[in-house]
């Protein structure tokens, strides 16, 4: 599973079908819930995860979460290199766990997916992979390319590395180093002290039907289990397992020479053995949580997506009144299907799946363009590339509904911004030589050329046709400031479609020469 996620996020050739990538991401807890709220899909993935947690504990953390699996990989490597020894039981840092969860949830209520995104393990893993790991995979693939060409294996081609030295990439690298260092030092420390999903699922796991328990009658406190446990959740003194922090690796089951650990149904084995245990049997709070969740799911099925869409839509239009209509120079441009900055930022968890999927690589994690809170959310960088007219992969992979999967015809009329032409900077005006790089690239004929002095042709802008794809800005050869730039729209609009008249040239009946 971890390998699958790794492959999806490091897809150097953008080959993995978008449907596969999206479906895989929807198995994740946070994207599944955000998609539900965004009206982009039902929270089936999250439903299964909650159900599984109430039955067996943190199954998600054990087999589904890509960040968890990455930490397991690092932990495994570390043990290969040098034995970690015995990690002593660590007391739960409850204050930190719950404050991260509360801040994340509160932030989510106020500003949507943004707050959750910081600590959501799936998004964190995606963000790291799509920037750091993908670059490494591309470089490796490129270094193999000449060899592959010699051996005659067709279709192995060079592709541009994605790493650039920006604040966004450096911060992503630091995040990776932090997560890795934590994993080397203390295994699943992140999952047990920081991760908000881990905290929530851990709370539910305390009431799981089947739980891992240490039988005090068998335990001789040999502490072999402490060598295996990556979660530091076995308290040998009290001979108890903190099941809220157990990530279900089940290594202790195998390593214990006395078979002291048992994964058994709560309430049959333990209630009779130890009366006190019955206190932690599934309690009403956890049950009701699941029921609330399921009824939310039901309501969504009954009402359809409109309920949530309208609710979020009205909020967005409130904020829209504050901003003047029309293009804004400093506004980062969000991909078509994201409806505008507000919708996009409310639902994007910055997992970077669209960044990996984008074949032109116009999508990249933003620096501070959206402001500090939306750091690392993808934006379209027209100095790097432009949005391909006949492509809408980003909408097809987005698991959260931040970028809706528009039909191609609709995408081709979606106005994410508008070009601004500064003729005084244009090559044709300044140097008196032809250029037309902008009009050449324009897919909608929003930039054409018209006659100018001395037989030259100068660009002419038709703003109503412009969809803001950035092809003109990308192509413009003028530096440092480009003569044509695209400015973002707070709310994406709709471009006009040019009406075609029959072509002006009739085919000659004979050779014209």
């Amino acid at each position: 599973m971890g390998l699958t996620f790794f492959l999806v996020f490091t897809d150097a050739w953008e080959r993995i079908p978008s449907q596969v990538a999206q479906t895989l991401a929807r198995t994740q807890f946070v994207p599944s819930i955000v998609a539900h709220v965004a009206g982009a899909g039902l929270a089936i993935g999250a439903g299964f995860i909650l159900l599984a947690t109430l039955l067996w504990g943190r199954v998600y953390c054990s087999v589904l979460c890509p960040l968890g699996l990455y930490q397991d990989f690092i932990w495994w490597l570390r043990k290969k290199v040098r034995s970690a020894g015995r990690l002593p039981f660590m007391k739960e840092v409850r204050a930190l766990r719950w404050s991260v969860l509360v801040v994340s949830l509160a932030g989510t209520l106020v500003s949507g997916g943004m707050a959750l995104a910081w600590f959501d393990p799936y998004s964190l893993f995606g963000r790291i992979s799509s920037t750091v790991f993908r670059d490494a995979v591309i470089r490796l693939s490129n270094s193999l390319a000449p060899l592959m060409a010699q051996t005659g294996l067709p279709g192995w081609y060079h592709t541009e590395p994605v790493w650039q030295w920006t604040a966004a990439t450096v911060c992503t690298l630091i995040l990776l180093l932090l997560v890795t260092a934590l994993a080397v030092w203390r295994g699943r420390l992140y999952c047990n002290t920081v991760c908000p999903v881990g905290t929530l699922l851990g709370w539910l796991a305390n009431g799981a039907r089947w739980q891992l328990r240490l039988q005090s009658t068998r335990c001789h406190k040999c502490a072999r289990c402490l060598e295996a446990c990556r979660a530091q959740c076995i308290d040998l003194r009290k001979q108890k397992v903190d099941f809220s922090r157990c990530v279900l690796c089940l290594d202790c089951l195998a390593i214990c020479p006395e078979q002291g650990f048992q994964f058994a149904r709560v309430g049959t084995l333990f209630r009779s053995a130890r009366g006190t245990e019955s206190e932690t049997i599934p309690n009403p709070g956890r049950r009701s949580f699941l029921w609330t969740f399921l009824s939310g799911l039901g309501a969504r099925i009954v009402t359809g997506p409109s309920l949530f869409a309208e609710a979020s839509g009205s909020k967005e239009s409130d904020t829209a009144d504050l901003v003047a209509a029309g293009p804004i120079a400093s506004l980062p441009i969000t991909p078509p299907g994201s409806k505008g900055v507000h919708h996009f930022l409310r639902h994007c968890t910055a997992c970077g799946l669209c960044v990996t999927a984008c074949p032109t690589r116009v999508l990249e994690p933003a620096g501070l363009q959206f402001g500090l809170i939306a750091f690392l959310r993808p934006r379209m960088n027209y100095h790097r590339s432009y949005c391909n007219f006949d492509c809408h992969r980003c909408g097809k992979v987005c698991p959260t509904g931040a970028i809706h999967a528009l039909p191609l015809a609709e995408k081709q009329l979606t106005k994410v911004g508008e070009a601004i032409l500064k003729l005084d900077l244009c090559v044709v005006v300044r140097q008196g030589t032809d250029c037309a790089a902008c009009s050449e690239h324009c897919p909608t004929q929003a930039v054409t050329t018209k006659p100018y002095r001395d037989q030259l042709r100068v660009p002419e802008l038709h703003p109503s046709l412009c969809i803001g794809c950035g092809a003109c800005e990308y192509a413009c050869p003028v530096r440092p400031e480009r003569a044509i730039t695209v400015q973002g729209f707070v709310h994406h609009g709709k471009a006009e479609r040019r009406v075609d008249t029959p072509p002006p040239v009739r085919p000659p009946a004979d050779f014209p020469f």
Partner: protein
Amino acid sequence: MKTRRAFIKTSLAAGAALSFHGLERLFAEQTRSETSATQPSGPSAAQTLLVAVRDGERAVMLNRALAELGGIQAFVKPGQRVLIKPNIGWDVPPERGANTHPELVARLVELCFEAGAKSVSVFDNTVDEWRRAYESSGIEAAAKQRGATMVNGKDESLYRNVTVPGGVTLKETQVHRLYLDSDVVINVPVLKTHGGTRITACLKNLMGVVWDRRFFHRTDLHQCIADFLTVRKPDLNILDAYHPMVRNGPRGRSPEDCVQMRTLLVSTDPVAVDAAGAKLLNFEPDQVAHIPAAAKLGVGIADLDQLDVRRIRMS
């Protein structure tokens, strides 16, 4: 005021040119029909040949035109490595006329292998995303099916810096090594209008073997295009004017931007082909500034009167 007047004048002139076009034809020399084309077809002593074929299917016209030039064997010898350079600039299907038609490329690949070519490579430094353009254009499938190799045009490590021997403006540039190292280079552009350079044909198509096109655009585009020919002239130039794009070029918006002309121009001289191509789109060669610029550098002939033009009708 002045520009408006100039604009009206230009439009009037263009209108007049269009309306007189038919009249002009009445006085034009009678074109060679397929039957009369069996006249001596060996290369005439000094004059460059320009073969213009019309009213046939692409592959058939190609066969016919090459027969006039001594067959593909005159250009491709057994064991040689051939580069075919079509226009694959855009991520659009063949009917849009923005890229060279895959049928033409396919036939050309076949011919090269029939002549004993050791390898046939095809590439373009595309404008749109290259893998999508290769696929949508139909060229990748057509070429691969006939045994050609599609090469990555977006890999800077495959480009080499060269000096431009006769360059007026362009002194050095990075060129794809296949263009420099192949034994035979066959230039197969599609004829289109172009918002900046008026038309795009043989000379403009060669910008697709150059890495840094922005330098061309900001430093006298026409002169750079002409200068580049002094690096190496393609050995054979085949212009696909079957369904040329007559407006909204070079990308176009729909198949309605094209008209059916069913014409193919072939010559060893890319300048000559472009001069004739310009005429097909109602431009005088002099209006397309890189054509006279190239002629001035002595890399080709823009004056059609100085050429041995073979006009062939297939029907």
